[in-house]
């Protein structure tokens, strides 16, 4: 489905990605873990062409592309096959929830308006927001906004959805509703790459875990294996920090 080869990216002197390669199969849920600054988000942004990689290739759904390309046409072709869920939702503030979800259909894909409304309504119902169709982003809570963001991604029927730390900007009590939505999608076989700090989510939902450190993939494999017998010392340390029981009594 998705195959990424040897991605390099520098910002000035800062070599953020130093040759990243991985594969995603159909229906896979890939969790990308790693400390801040390890290049997770940059990797995802390169795959969506928000950043231009310095080197690297990608094959998505039978289409091979050079990740360094600046071609608007190729970029758009790839984006028509993918969708992206942002850390801070990035809903269109001037559009209602329904319009946010419809826009990718009516404008980008020239879907008939009635048909688009049907699809968008169904997508919003799926994320539990059937009652909020005509609400503007300013009237929705963070969790609700992120769920609209997920519905917006779903509606365009992408081959794969990239999630960039979808719960990091949320209040703790709102994280659950968004994770539940993503879990639901995973169950239905949606192919996803999720950059996350939610270890329990990675362990329970992902079919594959990638651990990144210093711009390279240190380890990747089944979550059972990564979480119980990590091969690399640094992976072990990172996981230990997160997996210790959070029962501090302050």
């Amino acid at each position, binding site marked *: 489905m998705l195959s990424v080869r040897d991605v390099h990216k520098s910002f000035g002197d800062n070599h953020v990605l130093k040759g990243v390669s991985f594969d995603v199969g159909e229906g896979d849920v890939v969790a990308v873990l790693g400390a801040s600054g390890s290049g997770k988000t940059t990797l995802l942004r390169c795959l969506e062409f928000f950043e231009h990689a310095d080197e690297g290739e990608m094959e998505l759904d039978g289409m091979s592309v050079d990740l360094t390309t600046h071609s608007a046409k190729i970029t758009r072709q790839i984006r028509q096959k993918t*969708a*992206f869920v942002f850390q801070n939702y990035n809903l*269109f*503030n001037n559009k209602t929830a329904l319009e946010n979800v419809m826009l990718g259909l009516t404008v980008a894909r020239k879907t008939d308006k009635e048909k688009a409304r049907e699809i968008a309504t169904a997508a919003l119902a799926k994320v539990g927001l059937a009652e909020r169709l005509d609400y*503007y*982003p300013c009237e929705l809570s963070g969790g609700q906004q992120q769920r609209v*963001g997920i519905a917006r991604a779903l509606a*365009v029927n992408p081959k794969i959805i990239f999630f960039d730390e979808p719960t990091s900007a949320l209040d703790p009590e709102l994280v659950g509703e968004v994770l539940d939505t993503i879990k639901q999608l995973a169950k239905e076989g949606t192919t996803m790459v999720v950059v996350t700090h939610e270890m329990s989510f990675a362990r329970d939902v992902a079919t594959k875990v990638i651990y990144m450190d210093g711009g390279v993939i240190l380890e990747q494999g089944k979550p059972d294996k990564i979480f119980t017998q990590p091969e690399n010392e640094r992976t072990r340390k990172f996981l230990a920090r997160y997996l210790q029981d959070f029962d501090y009594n302050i």
Partner: protein
Amino acid sequence: MKIDYEFIKEALPDIAGYIPVTLNLVLVSLLISFPLGVLFAWINYKKVRVLSPVVKAYMSLIRGTPVVLQIYIIYNITPYILASILEKMGSDVNVYRLNTIWYAYFALSLSTTVTIAEAMRAGLETVNNGQFEAGLSIGLSAPQTLWHIVFPQALTAAMPVLGNVAVELTKATSLAFIMAVTEITGRAKVLGGGVLRYFEAYICVFILYIVIIAIMEQLFKLVEKRISIYRVGRHGSVRI
């Protein structure tokens, strides 16, 4: 001083008859300067190479000089330049017979473009780049994202300032009589001068400007309220 109320009664409708000229000056100047202003705003916002410094130089040139002076220069120099260009091209169009209102449009648009460009650039800066990326991510092209997402929000943010720009422009049209365009101020000057009743004539235009601008302000308020609905929502804010 005795005020001649009879004269006011006669002059007011006469001068009011020139309101269309004033409004015409406002509308055409806005039609010219709005697209240009948006374009300049975009060029500055994106810091387009070569163009951005040119636009900035133009803007500080216009901002740094009085509108009256710009009008004098345009009214006195443009015809010569136009005439010599046309002559070189072998055209026998006589620019001196061109309706002077075109010079007025031109002169008024110069400075209006600058203020619109500034308002719109500030407006563009209120829209976070994330929304632009979100548009691209669902398959919209860059122009489509600009049109549906970025531009409407920039316009909403700029609306209060744009309202002021329109009001300022309306008042500036009173300078058009320098260019022999008879709008309400020009007409008042002529009427008042004929019978040496300047004070009464100017009282009339005074009232007319107040009325015109009060109506404009209300219109802008309505538009602003309508297009900024997304900022307050329809259901009362329930944001947690």
